[in-house]
């Protein structure tokens, strides 16, 4: 009891006692472990997501430079490119989707699972 006076009659005293008692049910005892696992995982996910975004940006950049070069040097014109995409879109779009999906799955999910199983560096007691 801190500071304030708590004087009640019998019924009030019983209410007071009940209010001060912990409710039924146990407190989960593995909170610390779960939080520490999460603390270890978050930087790994961030790092992988960053790596993956960087690689993806690089590929898109190369693709844009390639198409621009083709157009600039007159090797292809917009109409030819458009016609090519239109003609092959049933193959191009699923292929693009598959490549992106495989890449992301490999880059984030597999690497994440692989890294998670690696032993962590010791963060033991540092007095």
């Amino acid at each position, binding site marked *: 009891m801190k500071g304030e006076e708590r*004087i009640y*009659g019998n019924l009030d005293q019983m209410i007071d006692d009940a209010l001060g008692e912990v409710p039924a049910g146990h407190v989960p005892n593995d909170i610390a472990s779960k939080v520490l696992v999460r603390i270890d995982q978050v930087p790994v996910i961030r790092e992988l997501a960053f790596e993956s975004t960087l690689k993806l940006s690089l590929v898109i950049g190369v693709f844009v430079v390639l198409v621009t070069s083709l157009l600039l040097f007159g090797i292809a014109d917009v109409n030819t490119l458009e016609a090519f995409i239109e003609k092959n879109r049933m193959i191009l779009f699923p292929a693009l989707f598959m490549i992106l999906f495989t890449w992301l799955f490999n880059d984030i999910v597999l690497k994440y699972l692989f890294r998670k199983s690696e032993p962590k560096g010791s963060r033991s007691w540092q007095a």
Partner: protein
Amino acid sequence: MNDEDLILQIRRGNTTAFRHLVDKYSNMVWFLVLRMVRQREDAEDISQEVFYKVYHDINKFRGDSKLSTWIGSVAFHTTTDYLRKRGRAKIIFTDDETMPQVAAVDFDTPYQMLKKEDVKGLIHRIIDNLPLQYRTVITLYHLEQFSYAEISEITGMPEGTVKSNISRGRSAIKQKLLSLVPELEHDYSNND
């Protein structure tokens, strides 16, 4: 190990110290969160979120208040944010002049068969059915043993509002208890 040492060690990345901190304050966080959300699964998720924030924000703790008050404040705000996002409750912590309404509580044990523990169990059920702001301050005051000033710091309510909410919450509990078990009034005569 005292709180200052715990904070220092956690800031150095010592996970053992963090485990000590969780052991020390998990009861406080758990019972406050559970009283506010009333569901174990949600309370588990929120309690983990609270300690995750504590670990990450420990550098922001300047020691102006006690560590328990700061952790209580993190728990309170994390839970109110959660409730707000879920839209489960209208989160208003004000000084309401009216008596809080307690939701319906099923109770049909005959008075003759009633034991003191049953009455205490019934009181716990009544608290769970109080409006959020009352069950929160009552839990912080009676169960967690925080002072009015500390509760004011945790919840952001003025100290006067904290006092009146605790008082009205208690009155509502008593009223509901007597409406469910009127015989208690005669058997437990009051001195006040």
